[in-house]
């Protein structure tokens, strides 16, 4: 079975090819079967091979499909690598991916681009699986760029609206900044360590580089650049909220459950490298903390249901980065998994709400939907509970693990922990703000649930996973065993435990008082001077977009305007002129006269002999 893991990306890829080459000519049920079925098959393969892998007790498994090319010292193979980390990733990607595909068969059923949608989705899943299964940097990069491309295509899926195209471009350009950094990092690793194989790279890095050596710092910094781009962390987080322009299942699959966590995966995969560069590792933690706080505050002020979820995604990935930064590798991966469950659930439930209200996304135009949309309501309750990390939900276990690891990490760990706890409070407030505003209070729009079984079933399954996913033990011990701090379950005091259980509940309480019982008025808070300013500031995502506009875009545009007829343009223009002049000159030599051709042969000979004799 393990020899068949190549089927994992092959099924979605086949699905993509079928859908792409029939060009929308297939009837919808067939498209749905191919689109969702291919992912379902991939999940079955993933489940079976994971079972076999785990029961065999191996720590890793490598499958070389073929040597892509080997010439001289350079060799690159299509080969896959399976270990505990990969097992978690493939199960999440194919499992959650399948549920979202199933949901999409209902959600997108009225869309004219039905076939195109599934084609892109399948391609995305294939690329994502290649990314996590990759054994070498070339394949990893292929997957990395592949998911980026699909993300671009899917954000701009409704391309008739120019705003969506703009959002897609923004996502592409911003993540490209990170990608460039990552590509540089990969080149650096390759040239310095002389191999493309990731495991060998890590091994060689440990052998050749001292802890804290310049090369290790440079390489891990460059990789971190790629990770923050893909995972929408500070300072490259601005693309994710706009990426919500795509259809909601996209947001669930790509911008919540899988692609945006690729950065986390990358760091976890190369964690040995980060351990060689402790300063960069703590930078990871701080990036995570600051991002999670900023995004948490911002989420509190948004009123587009998907943007709230987007900011919450940024914030939760911040937690994962925090976990990575303090060396709690498995906790970060654990949170990645639980987050995939509950955030996909929330997005899909939000999708149902949006669909029921005919693509209304502002939460203040919703309200009192509890009775009308029971399935969505309960999904939201479960998802938000997990997001808030209420005790015994999946989010509780994973977030708890990260925060405790931060606390134990010593040094500035207490500070990191404190920030994480404050973040948790805000998480509780904003997520239940969403629940209370949308589902309680008076009803503005009476709505009816439009979902069929294919939309309900994924919600139920994801709901169960979001609730109980915390009890899953992820099999990554072998992967991180050499790296993880040997904390023998240093039992934190009861107070800490109590506090961490209490914080989310307090948050829910605050949220209740503000947004449900209206005991406290949020409006009043917002209207007060400081509150208004803060609100405005937070609402705009800490003014990051404006900042980038001011710092990068505007100067660039004005520079461009200044330079309309200037150096670079001139240079390029010169190049074009030069080329076409050279062309014109050369074309004139093709006179068609045989004697002229013979003369050119003779002249060539004489000149070459002269060159040869003189040199």
């Amino acid at each position: 079975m393990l020899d068949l893991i190549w089927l994992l990306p092959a099924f979605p890829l086949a699905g993509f090819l079928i859908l792409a080459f029939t060009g929308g000519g297939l009837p919808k049920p067939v498209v749905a079967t191919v689109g969702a079925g291919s992912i379902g098959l991939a999940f079955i393969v993933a489940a079976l091979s994971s079972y076999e892998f785990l029961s065999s007790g191996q720590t890793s498994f490598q499958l070389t499909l073929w040597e892509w090319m080997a010439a001289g010292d350079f060799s690159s193979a299509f080969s896959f690598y399976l270990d505990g980390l990969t097992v978690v990733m493939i199960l999440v990607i194919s499992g959650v991916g399948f549920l979202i595909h199933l949901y999409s068969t209902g959600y997108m059923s009225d869309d004219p681009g039905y076939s195109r949608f599934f084609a892109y989705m399948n391609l995305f899943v294939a690329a994502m699986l290649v990314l996590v299964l990759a054994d070498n940097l070339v394949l990893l990069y292929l997957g990395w760029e592949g998911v980026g491309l699909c993300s671009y295509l899917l954000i701009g899926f409704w391309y008739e609206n120019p705003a969506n195209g703009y959002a897609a471009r923004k996502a592409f350009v911003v993540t490209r900044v990170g990608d460039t950094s990552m590509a540089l990092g990969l080149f650096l690793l390759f040239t310095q360590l002389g191999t493309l194989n990731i495991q060998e790279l890590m091994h060689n890095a440990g052998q050749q580089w001292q802890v804290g050596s310049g090369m290790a710092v440079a390489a891990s910094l460059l990789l971190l650049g790629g990770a923050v781009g893909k995972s929408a962390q500070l300072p490259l987080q601005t693309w994710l909220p706009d990426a919500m322009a795509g259809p909601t299942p996209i947001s669930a699959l790509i911008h919540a459950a899988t692609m945006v966590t690729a950065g986390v995966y990358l760091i976890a995969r190369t964690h040995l490298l980060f351990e060689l560069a402790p300063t960069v590792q703590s930078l990871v933690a701080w990036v995570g903390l600051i991002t999670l706080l900023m995004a948490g505050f911002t989420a509190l002020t948004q009123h587009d249901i998907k943007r709230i979820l987007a900011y919450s995604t940024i914030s939760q990935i911040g937690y994962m980065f925090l976990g990575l930064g303090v060396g709690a590798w498995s906790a970060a991966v654990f949170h990645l998994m639980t987050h995939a469950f509950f955030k996909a659930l929330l997005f899909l439930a939000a999708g149902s709400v949006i669909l029921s209200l005919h693509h209304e996304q502002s939460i203040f135009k919703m309200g009192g939907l509890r009775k009308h949309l029971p399935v969505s309501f309960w999904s939201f309750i479960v998802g938000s509970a997990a997001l808030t990390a209420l005790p015994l939900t999946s989010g509780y276990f994973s977030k708890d693990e990260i925060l405790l690891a931060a606390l134990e990490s010593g040094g500035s760990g207490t500070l990191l922990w404190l920030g994480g706890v404050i973040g948790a409070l805000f998480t509780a407030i904003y997520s239940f703000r969403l629940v209370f505003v949308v589902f309680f209070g008076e009803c503005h729009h009476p709505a009816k649930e439009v979902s069929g079984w294919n939309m309900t079933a994924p919600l139920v399954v994801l709901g169960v996973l979001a609730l109980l996913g915390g009890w899953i033990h992820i099999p990554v011990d072998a992967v991180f065993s050499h790296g993880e701090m040997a904390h023998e379950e240093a039992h934190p005091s009861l107070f800490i435990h109590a506090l961490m259980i209490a914080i989310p509940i307090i948050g829910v309480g605050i949220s209740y008082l503000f947004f449900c019982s209206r005991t406290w008025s949020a409006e009043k808070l917002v209207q007060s001077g400081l509150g208004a300013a803060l609100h405005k500031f937070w609402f705009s995502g800490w003014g990051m977009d404006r900042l980038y506009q001011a710092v990068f875009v505007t100067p660039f545009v004005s520079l461009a305007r200044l330079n309309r007829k200037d150096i670079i343009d001139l240079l390029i223009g010169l190049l074009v002129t030069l080329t076409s002049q050279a062309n014109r000159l050369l074309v004139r030599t093709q006179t068609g006269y045989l004697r002229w051709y013979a003369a050119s042969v003779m002249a060539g000979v004489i000149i070459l002999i002269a060159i040869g004799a003189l040199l």
Partner: protein
Amino acid sequence: METAITIQDLVPLLPVLVVTGVAVLAMLLIALKRNHTLIGATTIIGLGLALITAFLVLPFAGQQVTPLLMIDNFSLFFTIVILLAAGFIAVFSFPYLYHLKDEVEEYYLLLLIATIGALIMVSSNHFLSAFLGLETLSISLYAMIAYPLHSKEAVKFPVEASLKYLVLSAVSSALILFGIALLYAQTGSLQFTELAMTGGSVADGYFITALVLLFAGVGFKLSLAPFHMWTPDVYEGAPLPATMYLATVGKAAMMVLLLRFVVASQALSFHSVVVVIGCMAVLSILAGNLLALVQENLKRILAYSSIAHMGYLLIALIALDDASTRLGVEAISFYLIAYIVMSLGAFGVATVISSSEKEFDFVADYQGLFWREPWLALLLTAMLLSLAGIPLTVGFIGKFYVVLAGVEGSLWGLLLVLVVGSGISIYYYLRIVYRMLLQPQLDQAYREAGWDSIGSYAVLALLLALLLLLGVYPGFLMSIIEVVSVSI
């Protein structure tokens, strides 16, 4: 020196002998009964038979047959490649000539004889056999180029193309011969290896003159700048299958011969020879790509692009200077195969819609091909993208290989030129693709695909499969090449 030919010597020569036998048989058949289908089939089957014998004699590889020919793995490998290419071209020629109102059977004779010449060329390690093979190939090509000269509303200008090729090719042959004569005068031997033994001990200037004359002549046959000017005219004027033959088999055989010569004679140990070849490479890459930019004739575009591609190959050839690595040989071998696949495919698409009565060789003729003949358009697009070196096609791997060889040899300047050239080339390749996507305007009457075209379409499909297969999974071919390139 033992020069008598024994039976053991004849065994490795079997592929050449089979092709010769088939040529004689075809000639006899023509005398008995003129039948296009019969002769065409005989040719194709005969080439197939020769292909099989080429595989069968593989165990006998590594044998010097008389002082003239060296049958080793490398020569047998290219024997197979050339036989395949010649067979494919025969398949393409059949429907193309089907409606020619003239006697078409002798065309196949010429094709077979040219193939004999090419086979001799890839096996020779002696100037005499090399020259004999080269002239056999060239003289047959003169006639192939001029073949449809009675055709009324004819393909272009076969007489003009043929005469131009004949005169210039004879000049270049004379240059090669004079170069050989000078080398012979100094070394007293016509063996390739002799130069390596005496090199350095004799006055350099003398050798350099001789070698430059030799490389100039070879450069002409490979259409390298500044000896490239005949290429577009001959490509355009010749009937498509002859163009195809000239572009693939003709170039490949010459390149293999050059490779053998350079490896055996260690001619690159003369620094100025490296400089001269470097100049030719730079000029070819730039001139080829620049000339193609605004060209409106597909055949001429492909002619110019072939100039550039041969320039890329020279980079790998120069990389052989560093004798420690075989990467240059491997790169050239792979690139030649890639180039043969791409050229056959690109010209093949033109051939299946053209006939000897009417050729569609202007880019305008292909406008809207995507809407009229989607599969052919897809095929041509794949071939053009591969020529441009887009990843996942064989062209990319070939170029990558060449770059790798260049990097090993630290030829940074030449690689820069390669990058610039490739950049320019994307423009004119994509221009054709773009034109194919436009709405069709003119209503060209492409040749109807009858039963006679089945083979052509099958070959095209095979070429596309090869293009993608070797682009995604080149390891297979690479390992073969690695093995065979050890033997030279």
